[in-house]
């Protein structure tokens, strides 16, 4: 059986493509919605960014933390990967010199 993750993930109803929320994550997601008034997809981004409790959320927002959404995280990961390759080439060139 396969779920429609292409819809569930942007709605904040699944963690990632092929990954459902664990019970504790789902509980926190609902707490963030109810007790901190976040939209579900925004609450989901906080949890995807490692926030694991309401206290974590409060501390993170106090320090001005803005979570990356799935699309931003994907772009950042792609850029990091490309950067690693370029760095490796650069190091190799410098060694030859």
């Amino acid at each position, binding site marked *: *059986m*396969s*779920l*429609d*993750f292409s*819809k*569930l993930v942007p*709605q904040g*109803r*699944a963690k990632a493509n092929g990954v*459902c*929320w664990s*019970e504790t994550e*789902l*509980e926190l997601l*609902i707490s963030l*919605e109810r007790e901190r008034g976040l*939209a*579900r997809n925004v609450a989901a981004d906080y949890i995807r960014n490692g926030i694991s409790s309401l206290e974590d959320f409060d501390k993170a927002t106090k320090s001005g933390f803005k979570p990356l959404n799935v699309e931003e995280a994907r772009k950042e990961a792609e850029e990091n990967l490309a950067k690693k390759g370029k760095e490796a080439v650069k190091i190799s060139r410098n060694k030859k010199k």
Partner: protein
Amino acid sequence: MALLTSDYATLTQKLNEWYNESAKEKVQSWIGKELFDVSETDWQTYNYLILNGLAKFDRVAEGAQLPIASSVEGDSVTATQRRFGGRVGITKDMRMFERYDQMQEIVRSSVDYAFDRVDQSQADLLGNGFTSTSYTDLYGYSQSNVTPDGVVFFSASHSNNQNSNVARNLIRNSAGTANPALARDAIVTARKDAKVHLDPNGTNRPINLDRLIVSATNEDLAERVVYTSGVQGTPNVDINPLKSKVTNILVWSRLDTRGNDSTDTSAYWYMADSRNVKSTLKSPFAQKPMMGEATQIHDSLNWEYPIDAYYVLFLGQPYNVFGATGAN
């Protein structure tokens, strides 16, 4: 006289007759089919879509056009048919000495086993419905136990794609404790929770949990809670209202122990809306278990008859079945 290759057709017919006899008996004791939608399908990939209800029924001014009701698409899943089967071997010795009793026993036993496995795999979808998002089924493959919203089958937090409302199908008692042991109070609360169920549009869609599903271990307790004329466990003389509300107790011995990991799940219990349960529990068959033509194996000279089936298990919208582990 020994059976020869020319007797293939006759023996096949005979085995098929035994097969059909056994299958007929076995289908009658196949409890999963009472709860699961086991209809036949031609689709290899089965697409299931929840419709979040038709939300239009408004007052209309004289001469005005009725407002159009448009359905709102909910979550969806796809389920792909899988093939299961085995072979029945009729040995040369059996044919040589016409051991029909043995052949009959082999066929009967194979049929029983095929249906037992199907039935157990269906029971396991309920028994594994409380934690995680998948489990290894009794065939050794990964089986999802989430509903189309991506949440484990029995949960207090089922979501929808329209708003942030959540709904439950995890049984609690009147004190709000989830997963209570089978008891009158928990049945009453589960029935109440189901009756006040709201669809994603906020409309009350009452679900009538009129069927109690229990393991063989809980059979006696279930019958006493539901069928006694007075309120079970109390000295008062009130009549037992559950007697007319829970109209059926389904005892499913395959719920006592999970087939996939031998966990004791005898305390688990469930309630279902008998009219709509099959829209939650889905098990479409592209082919019910059946026996095919024989082939002769060259080295052993066995005549092997394949028994196979195509089916898949998945969950639709969750609210027609409520469940509890009975742990609390």
